[in-house]
């Protein structure tokens, strides 16, 4: 993936476990939905604007639930208002592949799905499940998006989607009061980070809150360190599995990471405790009522969780610093995103996809917070606060940008609960003493995933 300073990439899949409920619902919706093709007015106008889609019902699936679902539904409501269409949203829970797969097999996929992984986009495109969208959003993508976003939605030269939401996953969130008590300032280098963690521990607060129950948070830790220690070439090579996971750069990154996460005094609850903590809880451990830790690392979407789930106020009670440089590395950002794809070709679906590619759609969610758009045409003033704006802009000022590596892996390796990279890094967190064995396990799991 080429270096692309400008727009932000995105976040992903922290969803409470309850979202399995969504799975059942999605199957039902998948089975009932559809059958509305062809009854809509044709034509495609910019921004999905003036098309009259009265009476058309569209199904949309994404992994978002809770707060994010509400925000996305607000975007869909704006589309409904413009076109008169009815859009039904279904949250698929963590594992969108497990929901879309059977729905596609059964011939009743949703009209539009928001895929959180480019790997899934590739898989579905290769299986012929996606509609090519060059004629729908190609021009918009060229006009308003940096080239990397077209690249990331292209399989074998054909454009299959448009990136709607992006996230900066190189943000480290902290409680300013805890840092002040410990007498430390936000660290800029890995050494500073360790010294700060030690000082915070001495002050009587646990420095780090780690969501070990969700394997993806650990992959994000690893990727940020790996991008900084191994450099972009190796990052790309490892992403494509051109070098094995047993490469010394992987062992080195794990060893570096263990300097922080391997210290039981630095991790809230110790490693075993951390393995029971899911992402929302890890944020609450820093910013909640019974806060016990000072720092939690995850992407910019943490801001939304802080606002909705904790009493802390962004800016004064919660702030972020960029993931520190390791060994003199320049500003680098790991990101992720959600790409809108068309699974059923219909005028309604096309209009919706076009709408999602427009700045108008992005601005609806941007105004609600917890969102950054890769669309350069989005007005930065719509971001509700300074933190969101800063985190969105951190992406554009980064020297290096790389897509979240686990999102580029086959889902069996990079995005499956309880197996592959997630599970192996969880085992590593429980016992980080043998990074070589962890690297070997990663390599064999990567090979098994094909």
């Amino acid at each position: 993936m080429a270096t692309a300073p400008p727009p932000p990439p995105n976040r992903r899949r922290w969803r409470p476990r309850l979202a399995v409920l969504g799975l059942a619902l999605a199957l039902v919706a998948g089975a009932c939905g559809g059958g509305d093709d062809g009854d809509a007015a044709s034509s495609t106008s910019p921004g999905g604007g003036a098309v009259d889609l009265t009476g058309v019902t569209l199904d949309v699936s994404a992994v978002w639930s809770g707060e994010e679902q509400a925000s996305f539904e607000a975007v869909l409501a704006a589309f409904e208002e413009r076109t008169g269409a009815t859009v039904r949203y279904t949250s698929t829970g963590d594992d969108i592949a497990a929901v879309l797969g059977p729905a596609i097999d059964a011939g009743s996929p949703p009209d539009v799905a928001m895929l959180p992984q480019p790997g899934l986009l590739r898989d579905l495109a290769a299986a012929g499940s996606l509609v090519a969208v060059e004629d729908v959003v190609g021009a918009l993508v060229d006009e308003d998006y940096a080239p990397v976003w077209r690249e990331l939605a292209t399989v074998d030269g054909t454009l299959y989607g448009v990136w709607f939401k992006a996230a900066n996953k190189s943000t480290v969130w902290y409680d300013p009061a805890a840092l002040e008590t410990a007498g430390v300032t936000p660290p800029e280098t890995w050494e500073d980070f360790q010294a700060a963690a030690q000082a915070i521990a001495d002050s009587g607060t646990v420095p780090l809150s780690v969501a070990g129950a969700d394997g993806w948070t650990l992959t994000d830790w690893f990727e940020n360190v790996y991008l900084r220690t191994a450099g972009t070439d190796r990052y790309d090579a490892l992403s494509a599995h051109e070098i094995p996971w047993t490469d010394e750069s992987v062992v080195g990154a794990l060893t570096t990471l263990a300097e922080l996460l391997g210290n039981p005094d630095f991790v809230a609850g110790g490693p075993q405790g951390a393995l029971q903590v899911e992402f929302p809880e890890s944020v609450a451990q820093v910013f909640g009522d019974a806060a016990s830790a000072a720092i939690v690392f995850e992407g910019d979407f943490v801001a939304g969780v802080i606002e909705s789930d904790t009493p802390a106020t962004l800016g004064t009670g919660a702030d972020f610093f960029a993931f520190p440089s390791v060994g003199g590395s320049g500003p680098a950002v790991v990101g992720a995103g959600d790409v809108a794809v068309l699974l059923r070709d219909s005028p309604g679906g096309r209009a919706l996809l076009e709408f999602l590619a427009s700045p108008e759609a992005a601005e609806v969610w941007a105004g609600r917070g917890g969102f950054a758009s890769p669309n350069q045409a989005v007005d930065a003033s719509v971001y509700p606060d300074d933190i969101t704006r800063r985190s969105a802009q951190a992406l554009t000022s980064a020297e290096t940008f790389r897509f979240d590596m686990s999102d580029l892996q086959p889902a069996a390796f990079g995005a499956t609960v309880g197996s592959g990279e997630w599970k192996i890094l969880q085992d590593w967190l429980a016992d980080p003493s043998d990074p070589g064995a962890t690297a070997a396990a990663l390599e064999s799991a990567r090979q098994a995933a094909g």
Partner: protein
Amino acid sequence: MPGRPPAAEGRGEVAAPARPGVGAGADPEGAGPTAEARARRQGRRRQVTVAAVFLAPAVVLLAVWVAWPVVFTVWRSFYDAGGGDFVGLEKYRQMLEGDATRRAIANNAVWVVVAPTLATGIGLVFAVLTERIRFGTAFKVVVFMPMAISFLAAGVIFRFVYEGDPDRGLANALLSGVVEVFEPPGPYPGARPSVPGALTGDGDSGFVTAEAYRPPATVRLGLVAIAPDLVPADAEPAAVPPPPPPGAVGGTVWLDFTRGAAGERGAIDPTEVGLAGVRVEALDATGDVVGADTTDEAGRFVVSGADDGPVRLRLAASTFRPPWGGFTWLGPSLVTPAVIGSFLWIWAGFAMVVIAAGLSAIPRETLEAARVDGANEWQVLRRVTVPLLWPVLLVVAVTLVINVLKIFDLVLVVPPGSVQDDATVVALEMWRVSFGGARDQGLGSALGVLLFVLVIPAMAFNIRRFRSEQQ
């Protein structure tokens, strides 16, 4: 097996009515067609047609929803992940050699042995006891109530019950109440020496000074990593006690941390406070405790009794004992027992109700006779009630075995993602490999076939019982 002979008889009886009919039809035919015979044959044909019409919907539905999926699953299990290539028994080999699938099979074995046995046992105990108590019916209703909750919802409930933090998880909250009576948490859990090396050891065994002090001496022992809310509100600025009398060692234990890390390590800075309630012990050369004192609000202590030479000081482990953290119920080692616990919560009620129904059908006289003969209640239960109830217990247990073999929802919902792999069972694994990241429906089908094969003995047993009961 008591079921055998009646079952054989049953088959005989079903077959019996057909034989005279066939015989009656065959005889006249041999003698040449008569009007009567033709009418009878037409009647039979009509009967068959009527039967076929009535049976057809059921047969079609069975074929579509049961027979075909079974056949398709078996067929699919011989093909690769994509379904394109025939791979023979390869998927079965993968199933038996894969780590996750083997763990799933092993876990399922644990489930099948433990869960039905315990559920039946608990159900039996509840059924027998509710017969004796006044509000037995109310009790039964309460125990049976979880049956009305879906497995998914019950799983979510138990996710909270098993939460590790005793402040949130019910299971650990109950246990910590008991544990902390015997091992009260110390005032400063997690504290560490401020100057590394000055004190050796750790919080579990207590910190011991590296240096030995010849009395009279004054010692400063700084600690850090104490959460601000653990420092007593009435703590006074750390102060050094006056020089101790001969044979005594005095000193200060204080929080060697100034807000903003402004202070100097090892020195008592102006705003640093003493730590009250720390037990300081003097150890002689052999390690025996020769004297002890507890620090006051300014952190001062004076330990006397060190007349015989240099002593080391130990900060007792009880000072640093953390509050009991609870069991990690949903960690790799306890997760399967924990999930089985949630299963029992749901199914013990079912076992109890069925067994109670069986219990009410037992002739009271037998129980009375046993009691009159001098048997105690345990003997009555073991030697009379259980043998009489045996058929019912067996039916309950077998029904639960079938249930347990296909257990899925609880195992999906209760364990966090980090231990799903440790808790996995065949049905969950089937779903994970078929529709998870790998999407290997060949392997998933092989697991489905395995599940099917495992269920067959239990089903056969139930069918046979059913037949013998029809007698």
